């Protein structure tokens, strides 16, 4: 666990920029936080998302074992976020994550997404990430 936290922190340090408000697409950037109760991929989570003008793309926990975001949507009415990602469990079996949340503090440097996560095995928990 300590190694994972260290690795996440190292990746975050490499990928992130100083915490100033990002003024472009609200989801773009590096996000660090927790998906509480995730027994397979741990409590800590790092998302890196981008915006090409039509689609939000990105990865969860970047690295050689990263989780690819297959579908991500932002509904500006209420700034609702929906993310689907394809992972593998410890035995190599496909595992789908679904994250639903809402952006809070949108204009501020400490923008966060809060909500819930669930996986295709039925596990679920709280989700919270803050933009770095």
């Amino acid at each position, binding site marked *: 666990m300590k190694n994972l936290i260290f690795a996440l922190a190292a990746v975050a340090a490499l990928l992130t920029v100083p915490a*100033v*408000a*990002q*003024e*472009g*697409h*609200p989801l*773009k950037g590096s996000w660090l936080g927790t998906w509480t109760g995730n027994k397979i991929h741990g409590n800590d989570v790092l998302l890196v998302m981008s*915006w*090409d*003008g039509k689609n939000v793309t990105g990865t969860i926990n970047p690295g050689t074992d990263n989780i690819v975001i297959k579908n991500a949507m*932002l509904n*500006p*009415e209420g*700034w609702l976020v929906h993310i689907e990602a394809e992972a593998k469990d410890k035995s190599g079996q496909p595992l789908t994550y679904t994250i639903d949340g809402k952006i809070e503090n*949108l*204009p*501020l440097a400490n923008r966060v997404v809060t909500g819930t996560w669930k996986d295709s095995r039925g596990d679920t928990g709280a989700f919270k990430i803050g933009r770095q």
Partner: protein
Amino acid sequence: MISMTTCRRVLRAACFAAALAVPSALLVAHHEPLAKFDDKKPVRLRGVVTLVDWRNPHAHVFVNVKSGEQVSNWAVELESPIDLEANGWSRTTIQPGDAITVAGLAARDGSRQMWGTAVAMTANGKRIFSVNMAPPPMPLQPRPTPKWPDGQPRLGSVAGGAQGYWAFPSATALVESGANVPMDEWGLLKNIADAPKVAPMQAWALQLYKERQQRFLRDDPMYLNCKPPGGPRQFELSHGVQFVEDRVRQRIFVLIGSGNNNYRIVYTDGRSHQGQVGGDDENPLFYGRSVGKWEGDTLVMDTRGFNEDFWFTNGGLPHTDQLKLIEKISRPNFDTLKYDLTVDDQGAYTRPWTASWTLRWVAGKDMPRHLCQENRS
């Protein structure tokens, strides 16, 4: 019979009323005053000056106001010392101990702060700290465009000749050409329902723009964090721009009077957008990377490679790092600079769109020097 004392009192009151009745435009403050002050909460107070804080971006006068037996200290925010000094005022115009009367707007947060729209000496009603930001009068006959020996128009001052800079933009916020959208000098919409008319925004950008507007532009990073006025915003600001044309090295410097007193470089030597500054190939910039060429009498600047950490216009229209700008600059006569812009940002807008405005030559003066201080907007 009315005594002389009464006469003087009446006269003084009339002078003061007249002074405060003069419409006072919120012209050149550095942040949107309505971000901090409420135009639906007029306030008027009379008191004694305790301190004059003569610092950019805004001068403040602190006033002790007596109400019954209570004395409370108010902070009166004024225009910037740059603009006040340009209108003949100084830090010694009033002194601690002077009695003044102030009309203006109360702070939204209920604190003892106000935006001073009219300040007068209580003793004689003399109005002080008024600011007139009218552009200089145009000559009766347009003066010819100054040119280099090869016939190319000169955009800046002439060594040993005409000195000056460009200011008084005819538009101070970006709006698509042809759209009629009432807004104030800082780009705050008079009617939020007009937001979709401003530019062809994608849904997320429109919602973000609306929220910035509904917060009275208080999140503007140019004021909060001294972020540079990249893109067209440098041509919208009150302290103007100045061009320095380095024809030997084939580049043009655009010096910016507002924001944080920065500059941008436009290369005219035919290079591409890549790798113009050491190591920045992958590093998006506040001013992007600009290359320019002359097409007849028009300088055409192509700029891309912007970062997303700033607002590229007053009013808070969003942009992304996909932003590309084509800026066309011409000088149809000595006193007029024409600025035509095409915005192409597929990350935030549904199609390319255009805007244009003019700036006026301010003759014989150097551009004001404004230095930004974070959280002193």
